[in-house]
């Protein structure tokens, strides 16, 4: 995991002091970006929450092996929480996660990117990490420059695609990743995706229906979208995981999809890889798992969803991002780490 504050203020170009959240010259808030890059051990033991590890990678309180690299990473910013986990069956985590919070001319914006490396490609872990990291930095920059959610999302997904293509080299089976991103501003919620990583809208009140915002780029995804097959059957269908869209050198020009909900009312935007939705594709079911906890404790709700997928078998890598609507509103509990 790394936390990135820009070296200079994007507003006036003044060098930013270490750990400053606001530019000392013009007062603009500096972007806070958190990316799980997969190289550095995370800050807390997944068993006992202790932040102290021995040099050889064991928790100094409970003795558990430290979650190394991307095996398990938890990222938290005000109004956003994410977790990415290797799961039970896979030997490494090929998912990637990036979060950011920033100020735009139109007010605060929070955003997340979830990418799932395509296992049948080469170096899928590098593909997902490159895509997520590039995307979140383009998102913050374009939103600050005044772009609206969808414009920023399109710029970011194209940038992410270039980042994955840059990894290809001479490979016959170049790195590839699926992609879902979401931006929450005070005006709207926008999502953009390629592949089968998903976005769900989970409203705060029980009266309004939770909703799947994305439509999988998979063989069965198109059938479900056209009402030809039931969602519950689709998960088990032979083509459920055969993606028809991805980022990467062998994907051609990406065809990202976008959806925007104007003034959606309070709630949470959930982005996830198929490691979660395989165990609960139904929006109402996911809402039951996440609510009402997500309204007061986003990291706790993300941890709850992860535990659900792990308890279900954890067959795939699991990545979850929860973004509060309106942006930055949800309470972040004190015992969870937050970005500097």
């Amino acid at each position, binding site marked *: 995991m790394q936390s990135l504050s820009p070296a200079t203020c994007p507003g006036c170009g003044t060098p930013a002091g270490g750990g400053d959240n606001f530019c000392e010259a013009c007062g603009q808030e500096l972007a806070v970006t958190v990316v799980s890059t997969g190289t550095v051990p995370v800050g807390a033991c997944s068993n006992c929450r202790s932040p102290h590890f021995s040099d050889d990678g*064991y928790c100094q309180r*409970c003795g558990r092996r430290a979650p190394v690299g991307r095996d398990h990473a938890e990222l938290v910013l005000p109004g956003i929480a994410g977790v990415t986990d290797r799961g039970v069956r896979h030997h490494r985590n090929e998912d990637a996660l990036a979060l950011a919070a920033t100020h735009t001319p139109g007010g605060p914006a929070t955003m997340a990117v979830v990418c799932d490396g395509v296992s049948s490609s080469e170096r899928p872990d590098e593909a997902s990490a490159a895509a997520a990291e590039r995307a979140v930095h383009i998102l913050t920059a374009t939103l600050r420059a005044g772009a609206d959610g969808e414009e920023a999302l399109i710029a970011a997904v194209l940038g992410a695609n270039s980042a994955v293509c840059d990894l290809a080299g001479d490979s016959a089976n170049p790195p590839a990743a699926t992609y879902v991103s979401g931006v929450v501003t005070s005006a709207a919620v926008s999502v953009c995706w390629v592949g089968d990583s998903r976005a769900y809208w989970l409203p705060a009140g029980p009266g309004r229906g939770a909703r799947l915002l994305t439509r999988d780029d998979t063989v069965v995804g198109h059938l479900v979208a056209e009402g030809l097959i039931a969602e519950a059957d689709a998960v088990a269908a032979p083509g459920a995981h055969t993606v028809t869209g991805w980022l990467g050198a062998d994907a051609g020009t990406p065809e990202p999809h976008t959806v925007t909900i104007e003034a959606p009312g309070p709630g949470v935007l959930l982005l996830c890889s198929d490691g979660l939705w395989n165990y609960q594709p139904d929006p109402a079911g996911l809402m039951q798992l996440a609510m009402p906890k997500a309204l007061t404790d986003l990291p706790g709700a993300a941890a709850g969803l992860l535990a659900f997928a792990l308890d279900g078998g954890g067959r795939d890598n699991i990545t979850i991002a929860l973004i509060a609507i309106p942006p930055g509103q949800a309470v972040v509990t004190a015992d969870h780490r937050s970005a500097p």
Partner: protein
Amino acid sequence: MNRPEFTIEVSQNEYLPAGTGEVNAIVNVTSTGSGADGRSAMQDDTAAAEVIIIDCSGSMKAPGPKMIRAREATAAAIDAIRDGVAFAVVAGTHVATQVYPSDGLISADPATRQEAKFALTRLHPDGGTAIGRWLLLARELLATREDALRHAILLTDGRNEHESAEDLAAAIRRCEGVFSCDCRGVGTDWVVDELRTIATALLGTVDIVPDPAGLAADFEAMMTASMAKEVGDITLRVWTPEGAIVRFVKQVWPAVEDLTARRTQAAPQAGDYPAGAWGTESRDYHVCVTVRPAAVDDKMLAARISMIHTTAEGPQTLAQGKILAKWTDDEAESTRINRHVAHYTGQAEIAQAIYDGIEARKAGDDDTAAAEFGRAVALAYASGNQDTSSLLANVVDVIDASTGTVRLKPKVSDADEMLLDTRSTRTVRVKK
């Protein structure tokens, strides 16, 4: 000063069945010396201080040449002290008297060694036995040399009669951590438990020298071994995860010493066990901890073993080793007992069986004694512990060693029983 290099090797089966938490490991600690291999012990510059305590009670007079042999043995030990080592000789009766030098310690050189040996001729057995007082004088002398490896040799031929058991216990407590002490009983009129208690507390050895003729060689060997020590005040530190319980920490080679009760808390999750002074040598420890079980496929650091050297600059970690736990559903993995763990579990059992057998014999319970000795015979036979096997053969007639079928000998000499008693804790290593 060069410090010895320590290495730790852990031998264990780290796989545990789901839901269980007992982890066993054999920890081999080896000190490879300070790189001064081949040098003469007499040229060593390690600061050391030695006190030789000789029983001069009336019983040393007769029968036979006990006192003469004790003088010769002391002289042999004095000759083994290298130049520059501070030393003194103490005579023990119902009081403790300094024989040489008249006061404090003196640096060894050819002249002082000669003077010391000459002073031994003045020793005349007369008086009682108050071992606690002897120890306290040694303490007084050695406590002045905090910079040095401090060691004493204690020789007695009788029981501690002229002070209370409490006085002796209190004296031992005061000496703990100040110096190490090797204890020898000559003849068969001394009490194994008394000397064993002292040797255990003061991290030394205990042995019987049944025939005074063997004293000189034994004393020389003891002093030579002490001169070979390069670093003192070593502790074995055991870190355990929260919620874990240290079941036991035992030295299991070269002899069984249960250190479990000697723990001092070093940190909230770490305890220190005394390991004394080290030269170029190797020792094995059996560590058993119980941790909270985790999920199948989870991996845990069940204990971290560190060898710690405490100096004026504070504690220094010389080596570390890991005891791990991994949970599995595969019984083939989890039921495999590590052969080192199995072997030393057996060696510790031999010592316990012999101890129980001796106690039962003293209590007149011959059936239990035969059963315990038989168990020890079978275990010693199976593990190839030939020294213990032959000691056992002095107290029982072995009918079938493999099954442990034995008959108590109708008449056992005191010396044979005491030999078995003092040496029952000696172990052998795993057969290759």
